[in-house]
C-alpha cells in the first residue's frame, strides 16, 4: 500500500486540510466572540457574587446581592417595579406583531408606487431609538404635545403621560411599538411574498374568504415570519433601554424603570457604581431571556434535525 509522504509539512496540512480548515476559519470570529460575549456572561455571574464599586477591591458577598434584590421585590421597590414593567413590556410589545401583520396586509398590493410606500412605512425602524424617544417625548409633552392638543378636541386631558407613574410605561411602550411594528411589518411582507398562491386558490375554491382565509390558510403559512417576529419582539422588549433612558431616565420617581435600565443605573450612572448588584440584576434578566433563547434554539434544533 502506497503511503502518502508525511514528512513534508505542506502535505500534512493538505492531507488534513478539511479537518483543520473550519477551525482556521472559525478562529478569529470565535476568539472575538469568546472574549467579548461568552466569557463576560460568566464573569457577570461571578461578579454578581461580589460587592464592588469599580474602584477598590471587590468583596465576596455570596448571594447577598440576590438577597437584596429579593427584599426589593418584597418591599415593592425598584427591582419590583423594574420586573413588573418588564413583564408589561413583554406583553404589550407583542402588539407589534398583529399591528405589523395588519399593515403588511394593507400594503400587500401591487399598485403603482407601492414599493416606495412599503419602504416609507419601514422608516421608523431605520431611525435611531434616540430620535424616536425624543419625538415621542414631544408628542406627549404636557404643555404643547400633539397628544394633548388632540385630546382637547374631545374635551379630554390634559394628560402628562410621561409624568404620571400610571401611564408612563405604557407611553414608552407605545413609542417603542412604532419602530417595532415597522419591523414586524417588513417580516410579514416578506412572509406574504412566500405564501403559496395555489393554496390561496385552493382556499377560494373551498369557499374560505376574508378573515377565514386569513385565519385558516394565510396565518399558518406565515408561521416562520410570526416566529421571527415573536423572537425579535421579545428580545426587543427585554432589551428596552434607549427609549427609557431618553424619555424618562426611569422616572418619574423610578416608575418606568425596567431591568435593563435599572441595571445600568445601578452600575454605571452618576449615582451608581454598584457593579456586583448591577450584575445580579443582569443575571436575572439573562435568566428570563434564557427561556426564550432556549425556546428559539430548540426550534432551530428541531428544524436542523428535520433536514
Amino acid at each position, binding site marked *: 500500500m502506497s503511503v502518502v509522504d508525511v514528512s513534508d509539512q505542506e502535505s500534512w496540512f493538505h492531507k488534513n486540510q478539511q479537518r483543520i480548515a473550519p477551525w482556521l476559519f472559525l478562529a478569529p470570529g470565535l476568539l472575538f466572540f469568546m472574549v467579548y460575549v461568552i466569557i463576560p456572561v460568566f464573569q457577570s455571574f461571578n461578579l454578581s457574587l461580589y460587592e464592588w464599586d*469599580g*474602584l*477598590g477591591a471587590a468583596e465576596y458577598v455570596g448571594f447577598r446581592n440576590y438577597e437584596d434584590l429579593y427584599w426589593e421585590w418584597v418591599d415593592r421597590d425598584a427591582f419590583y417595579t423594574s420586573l413588573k414593567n418588564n413583564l408589561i413590556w413583554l406583553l404589550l410589545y407583542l402588539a407589534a406583531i398583529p399591528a405589523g401583520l395588519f399593515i403588511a396586509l394593507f400594503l400587500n398590493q401591487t399598485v403603482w408606487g407601492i414599493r416606495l410606500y412599503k419602504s416609507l412605512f419601514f422608516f421608523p425602524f431605520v431611525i435611531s431609538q434616540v430620535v424616536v424617544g425624543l419625538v415621542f417625548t414631544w408628542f406627549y409633552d404636557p404643555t404643547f404635545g400633539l397628544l394633548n392638543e388632540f385630546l382637547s378636541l374631545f374635551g379630554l386631558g390634559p394628560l402628562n403621560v410621561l409624568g404620571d407613574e400610571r401611564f408612563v410605561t405604557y407611553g414608552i411602550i407605545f413609542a417603542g411599538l412604532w419602530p417595532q411594528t415597522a419591523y414586524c411589518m417588513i417580516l410579514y411582507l416578506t412572509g406574504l411574498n412566500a405564501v403559496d398562491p395555489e393554496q390561496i386558490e385552493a382556499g377560494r375554491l373551498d369557499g374560505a374568504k376574508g378573515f377565514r382565509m386569513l385565519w385558516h390558510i394565510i396565518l399558518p403559512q406565515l408561521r416562520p415570519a410570526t416566529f421571527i417576529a415573536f423572537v425579535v419582539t421579545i428580545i426587543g422588549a427585554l432589551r428596552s433601554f434607549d427609549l427609557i433612558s431618553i424619555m424618562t431616565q426611569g422616572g418619574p*420617581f423610578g416608575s418606568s424603570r425596567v431591568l435593563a435600565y435599572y441595571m445600568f443605573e445601578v452600575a*454605571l450612572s*452618576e449615582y451608581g457604581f454598584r457593579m456586583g448588584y448591577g450584575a445580579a440584576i443582569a443575571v436575572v434578566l439573562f435568566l428570563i431571556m434564557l427561556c426564550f433563547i432556549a425556546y428559539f434554539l430548540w426550534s432551530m434544533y428541531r428544524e436542523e434535525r428535520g433536514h
Partner: protein
Amino acid sequence: APVAAELTGELRIFLDTSNPAPRATMEAMIERFAEQHPGLEIETTVIDREAYKTQIRNFLTADTPDVATWYAANRMKPYVEAGLFEDVSDLWAEPEIADNLASTKGALTIDGKQWGVPYTYYQWGVYYRKDIFDELGLTEPTTWDEELANCQKIVESGRACYTIGTKFLWTAGGWFDYLNMRTNGFEFHNQLANGEVSWEDERVKQTFANWKQLIDMGAFIDNHQTYSWQEALPFMVNGDAAAYLMGNFAVAPLREAGLTDDQLDFYQFVSINPDVELAEDAPTDTFHIPANASNKDAAREFLRFVVSADEQTEINNGANLGQLPVNAQSAVDDDKFLQQGFAMLSSNSPGGVAQFWDRDAPAEMAKVSMEGFQEFMVKPDNLDRILAKLERARERIYEN
C-alpha cells in the same frame, strides 16, 4: 512665589469645565501659571462635565493626571477612601491657605485631613421676578408666614410661585436641603445625610409637612417631573411662575432669555423655625491631586496658584466664572447677585454651609431620596410609603 522657578517636567491637568466660558477661564488661568513656570510642560484635557463624573473612576486608576477637578464633601469620599486622592493637609497648614480659605476647610476635610483645594463656589437662593412682585405688591419675604402669604397671592394671580424641573431629580434635592435646614437645622441635616437619623423621625416629617403646605396650595408648576431645570426656565421667563430656587448659575440663562436686572432679583430662603440658625447651600468645586500623580510638586504649586487671592479674583469675576472666590482676600465682582450671595454666605449663614444634597449624602442614598422627593412633590399623600422606603434604603446603604 519663591520656590516656583525650579519646577520642571510635565504637568497634566484634567478639567470638567466643558462649557465654553468656564473652559476659557480655566485655560487662561493655566496659561498664566505656565508663564511663571517656563520649565514646566503643561498638558490640559477638558472632559464633558457629565462624562467626567464617570470617567474620573477610570483615570484615577490608569493614565492618571497630576491635577483634576472634582467636588467637595461626600462626593469625594469614595476616592479618598479608595486612596486615590493625595492628602494635601500640608498645603492647608501653610498660613496663606489656612488663613484665607478657612470657610471651606470643612468641605474638604475627611478623617481630619484635607484632600484638595476649592477654586470656586456659588450661593443658592430664590431668584424671583421683581416686576411680578411689584405688580402684586409683594416684598421679599423673610419668614415662612410671609412666604406663604406671598405665595397665596401669586397663586391667586394665576401663576405658580415656583418653577422647577425635577426630571433629573437634584432640583428637588435643593428644596429639601433648604426646607430641612430651615426646619431642623444644619446639624440635623448633616446627620440625616450621614445616615444617623431615621427617615421616619418626626423631625423629618415636619420638614415634609412644611413642604406639603407649598405643594397643596399649588406653589409649584404642574408637570415639573417631565422637565429638566433648563426646561423649567421658560415658565419664569414667560411670567407663568414668579420664582426659582436655584444656584447662581441660573442667572446667566435667565438673562440670556431676556430678563433684565430690573426684572430679576434674589432673596435668601426664608427662615421657618426661628430656633435654628440659617444655613445655606453653597456647592464648592475643587482641585485634587490624584494619589498616582507623577509630578506632585508641580501639582501642589498649581493648587497654591489657583487659590491665591489674585487668581481667585480673576477667575471668579463676572466676565469669567461669575461666582464666588474662595479666598477671603479676593474681591467679589460687583454683579448684584454675586454681591448679595457673598454677603449672605459670609454674614447671614451662621448655621453653616452645606455642599448640596447629592454631594453631602452618599450617592446611592442621594439617588433614592431624591426620587422620593420627586414622588412626594407629585403625590404628597404617599409620604409615609416614601419615608418607609427611604428608611429601608438607609438601613441598607449605611450598614457597611
